[in-house]
């Protein structure tokens, strides 16, 4: 009786500590969202969302930045999604598990921890200078794509790992080729997980500043990019300028908060899409 009471108390303390930790994290997040929502909410209007900045970015909206972020994320996706998924399929389904593949996997994990500014500088050298794409939306998108690749590969490989081997063996025992097995009896069940990880990686890319500031993002452009060779405005870079580089920082503060709010809503929206997507695809299979 006595020990069981003590066990009960220890358990109660343990649960309390876990709940408190979770509550703390949640509280910080909510406080943060509330603050930005309160200070940025006033700036949001149809004009703000649909027009270009005016009068030295002290008035007007952020439409070019919204479009720019959307387009650069699209380029990122075009590079990172097919390449990342294919690499994961190769690594998990085809490559012999050797010291080399372990080394490759370790390198990929490490690449996902490389600071984004390093990717940015790498992008300047490779895409802007060596490949002569110039400072353009293409260079920026490819740089973000490189940065996202390790995430896509890792997430996709994790998704493939969750598919029981019995699906593979069962299909092969019926006379399916390796590729038939993967295509018809592995990928359909792995894709929801692969997509979730991928969209999360893309959402992270959409919010990055460092990789795009030297590779293609512009301080101010009154027009939208018309080709892959054009520069573009992007929400995170615009926010950085409005918050720290502007000549009338006090005056544009509400606009900066408004930009932050739009960026956060965009990224959270992408994350929510990932969750919904996974839920939908999973349910369709049942």
């Amino acid at each position, binding site marked *: 009786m006595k020990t069981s009471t003590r066990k009960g108390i220890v358990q109660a303390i343990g649960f309390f500590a876990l709940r408190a930790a979770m509550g703390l994290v949640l509280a910080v997040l909510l406080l943060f969202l509330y603050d930005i929502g309160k200070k940025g909410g006033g700036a949001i209007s149809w004009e703000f969302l649909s027009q270009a900045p005016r009068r030295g970015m002290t008035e007007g909206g952020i439409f070019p930045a919204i479009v720019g972020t959307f387009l650069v994320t699209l380029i990122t996706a075009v590079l990172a999604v097919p390449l990342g998924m294919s690499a994961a399929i190769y690594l998990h389904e085809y490559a012999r*598990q050797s010291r080399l593949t372990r080394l490759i996997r370790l390198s990929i994990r490490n690449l996902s921890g490389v600071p984004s500014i390093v990717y940015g500088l790498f992008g300047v050298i490779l895409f802007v200078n060596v490949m002569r794409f110039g400072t353009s939306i293409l260079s920026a998108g490819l740089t973000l794509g490189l940065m996202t690749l390790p995430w896509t590969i890792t997430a996709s490989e994790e998704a493939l790992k969750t598919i029981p081997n*019995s699906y593979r*063996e069962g299909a092969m*025992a019926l006379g399916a080729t390796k590729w*038939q097995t993967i295509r018809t009896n592995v990928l359909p069940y792995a894709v929801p997980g692969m997509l979730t990880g991928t969209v999360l990686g893309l959402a992270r890319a959409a919010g990055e500043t460092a990789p795009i500031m030297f590779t293609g993002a512009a301080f101010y452009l009154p027009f939208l990019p018309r080709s892959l060779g054009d520069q573009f405005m992007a929400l995170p870079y615009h926010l950085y300028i409005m918050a720290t580089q502007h000549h009338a920082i006090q005056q544009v503060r509400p606009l900066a908060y408004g930009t932050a709010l739009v960026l956060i809503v965009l990224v959270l929206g992408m994350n929510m899409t990932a969750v919904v997507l996974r839920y939908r695809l999973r349910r369709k299979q*049942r």
Partner: protein
Amino acid sequence: MSNDSHPVKIKTENLDFYYGQARALKNVTIGCFEKKVTAIIGPSGCGKSTFIRTINRMNDVIPGTRVGGRILIDGQDIHAPDVDVVELRRRVGMVFQKPNPFPKSIYDNIAYGLRINGLKDKRAIEATVEKSLRGAALWDEVKDRLNDNAFALSGGQQQRLCIARALAVEPEVILFDEPCSAIDPIATAKIEDLIERLKTDYTVVIVTHNMQQAARVSDYTAFMMLGELVEFDRTGKIFTAPAHKLTEDYITGRFG
């Protein structure tokens, strides 16, 4: 070895198998007769599952493994360079230890093997699905819910579904790797009945750790230990008058 009017369907000659350095099969020479049930018994780790998985080359997919000796099916060496392993696996079906239905409908599970083998004609697929489910004695239980997910079936039904799935691609041999180890006695009895009937059309090899099961369903029994074939004979002979002391000790439960 006792003679039989049936020809030998599967013959292994001095079969060796290695996982890396570990030798899991040693010099196994055995002949499984056509349209007979051959049971492989032996204590855990004796190599019986390894043995059965060499027959449809399922072990090929495990890295670091190596085969020595020969396996002949209808006199053809299955490791010969001109043998298509995909076609071999279609001819030599396999039912696994744990029922492994795919997360699809009952219908699509059976149709899977047909579709990957290129069959597109809907009516032909439909006919084969029914025929296979009847062949696996499952039709009456599932005919009204072919579009339900296969996971909704009981364990025993799932295993019969896997048998039906194997039947659908019209194999010549069916390998059973401890098919009843994960299901209850009543479901086991049904599968044993089924195996009994399958041998009119198919050559069956079954690995089992259940000696009663081997005695009930098989015509021939091989007793293996530590990767070696100890004795192979008619099931009646193995269970009543084994030639080897080890076999006798095993079937009388002195070890295992």
